[in-house]
């Protein structure tokens, strides 16, 4: 069966196995065959693929087990999606405390990639809200892991890219909210200096902050800053209707110099015009692209890369400026750059990506060598600043860069499951 990661850079002929029950799952994990766990395949590069080997999917393991409205603790199977959780609980006064920019993510995937969201400075990463999980390993064992029980394996599995075992079910703590609404403010900024003061000024009073910026034109550095807090509104929210879709893969990338400039200029002025306060439903606020199915197809048959870096806050402004200049000069620009500051919270997992600093995320159409050359230049800047790249987005970083950015890799090694590997682990770890 073909399996393609979100970046669509290559297609794998995977042997996908879809156990129907937890009992089935244990049998398949312990079958002796090498495998990798599979959720919704929304990772961009190769952390979620296993060449032409076996992928054990959590597609049928998507049931809720229990929910306690006193504590907000939800126990569920690993294939349950964040979308399902948000829809089920937003009108009952609970939501996920941390969510990435798409809700098409399974609980297993959210833990294995220790995903972060716009509220990192307020709530940390997804892993910070995981209370415990059951991990099925290829020796047939089922291990319950939490901060009090098997803590080493717990920390290794959070952000562990699926390499420590198959997360079968998990208990997470949902956050209490009034409803599914967010009070937001959008502010246009003209340069990076303004971005950093906005970010600093917003941290105390705003739970969520993020910004989109222009990196393709000579006006590089200007952008739109969005901040938000859960609303006190209890108005019920209707279920999402998803109607738009990119129906096919265009023969060439629709993202090119011309369309980008036009888009970025247009987007800037649109955001400038719509600056100010607004109440958004959580879908508009957290998941703006979820309403367009298969948006990744716009990059054409060659696919695209996302480059997401984090560098320490101290030199963050300088480093970001330097990176933006290189990107603007390369004309390999991005649809939208995302720039945000992470809070000071230390990572929940041994291999967690989100850490104190400034993170920059950009999508680039795959133009072969030209794109690789640009990345090589950016790598140098990120490495010299003591930063690293996000494995869940990566399809090309060097072994050296991974080792330098993830200094607990050796400790992580002792928790690996010997029968699990991914294209990513073969490329930079094994």
């Amino acid at each position, binding site marked *: *069966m*073909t399996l393609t990661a979100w970046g669509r850079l290559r297609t794998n002929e995977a042997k996908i*196995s*879809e156990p*129907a*029950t937890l009992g089935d799952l244990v049998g398949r994990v312990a079958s002796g065959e090498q495998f990798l766990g599979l959720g919704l395949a929304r990772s961009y590069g190769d952390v979620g693929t296993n060449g032409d080997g076996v992928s054990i999917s959590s*597609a*049928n393991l998507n*049931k*809720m*087990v*229990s*929910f306690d409205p006193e504590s907000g603790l*939800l126990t*569920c199977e690993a294939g349950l999606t964040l979308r399902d959780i948000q829809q*089920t609980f937003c009108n009952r006064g609970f939501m996920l405390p941390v969510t990435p920019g798409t809700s098409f993510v399974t609980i297993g995937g959210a833990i294995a990639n220790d995903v972060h969201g716009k509220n990192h400075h307020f709530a940390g990463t997804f892993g910070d809200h995981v209370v415990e999980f059951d991990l099925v390993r290829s020796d047939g064992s089922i291990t319950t892991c939490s901060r009090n029980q098997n803590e080493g394996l717990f920390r290794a599995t959070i952000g562990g890219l699926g390499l420590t075992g198959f997360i079968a079910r998990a208990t997470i703590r949902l956050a209490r909210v009034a409803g599914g609404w967010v009070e937001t403010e959008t502010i246009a900024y003209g340069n990076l200096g303004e971005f950093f003061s906005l970010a600093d000024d917003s941290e105390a009073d705003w739970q969520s902050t993020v910004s989109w910026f222009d990196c393709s034109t000579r006006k590089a550095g200007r952008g739109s800053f969005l901040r938000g807090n859960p609303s006190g509104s209890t108005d019920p929210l209707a279920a999402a209707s998803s109607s738009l879709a990119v129906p096919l893969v265009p023969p060439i990338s629709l993202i090119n110099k011309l369309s980008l400039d036009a888009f970025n200029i247009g987007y800037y002025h649109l955001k400038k015009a719509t600056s100010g306060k607004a109440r958004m439903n959580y879908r508009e606020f957290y998941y703006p692209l979820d309403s367009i199915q298969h948006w990744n197809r716009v990059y054409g048959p060659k696919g695209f890369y996302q480059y997401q870096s984090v560098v320490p806050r101290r030199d963050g402004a300088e480093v970001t400026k330097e990176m933006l200049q290189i990107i603007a000069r390369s004309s390999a620009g991005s649809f939208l750059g995302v720039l945000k500051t992470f809070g000071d919270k230390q990572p929940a997992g041994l291999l967690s990506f989100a850490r104190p600093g400034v993170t920059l995320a950009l999508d680039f159409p795959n133009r072969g060598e030209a794109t690789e050359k640009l990345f090589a230049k950016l790598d140098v800047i990120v490495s010299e600043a003591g930063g690293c790249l996000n494995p869940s987005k990566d399809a090309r970083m060097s072994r050296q860069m991974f080792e330098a950015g993830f200094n607990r890799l050796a400790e992580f090694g002792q928790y690996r499951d010997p029968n699990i590997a991914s294209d990513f682990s073969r490329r930079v770890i094994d």
Partner: protein
Amino acid sequence: MRIVISAATSAIAHQCALAWARMPGAEFELIARDVQKLDGFANDIITRHPAVKVHQHIVDFEDAQAIGALAQKLGETPIDIVLIAQGSLTDQALAQTDFNYLKSELGLNAVSSMLFAESFAEQLAKWGKGKLAIIGSVAGDRGRASNYAYGATKAALATFAAGLQQRFAGSSVSISIIKPGPTKTPMTSGLNNSKMASAESVARVIVAGIEARKRVIYAPKQWALIMFVVRLIPFAVFKRLNF
């Protein structure tokens, strides 16, 4: 709204249950063979919809006596909807060589569903109202080399349902035969099922169809047209097709 679902651990049945659970006053009588498995599905419904009442019943799907007794017990109070969802995707090649396997597949796919249909139709008739729906398949619309052991059982259910429809015509008891196209469920997980319809979307069509008391419910709806064409293909052409 009191709803009986047999084979409540099937993916399509479960998605129907979740759709009904969103409606006010839903109460479920879930029937399955495996207590542990049923527990998981029941918990899913309750966790999502804490106000919904869920009762669980375990029965041997081929024990005519036990099925009749269960129907009688559940029929002591009026039932609004009965959904009969058991089915196993028969391995055609195996069925052609292993006759014990063929026999057990025919038993589950045809006999068991008919026993449930007859037992519960009697209860609906007793109260003079209710909707009974049986999950058949588009595979029952025309026998094909690749799946006729499965298709024949589903054709039998369609005929059985048609008979019940005539029997109850003019009353407030409605009978529906549901014909899902290939659906992405654990039953089809051995096939290349990534492009199939989701159980959730199929369930939406089924729930609306039962509500509207449709006699035949194709899900997704385009299968009505596709199977209309497939039935019309002359055998001289059909025999050369490979699908």
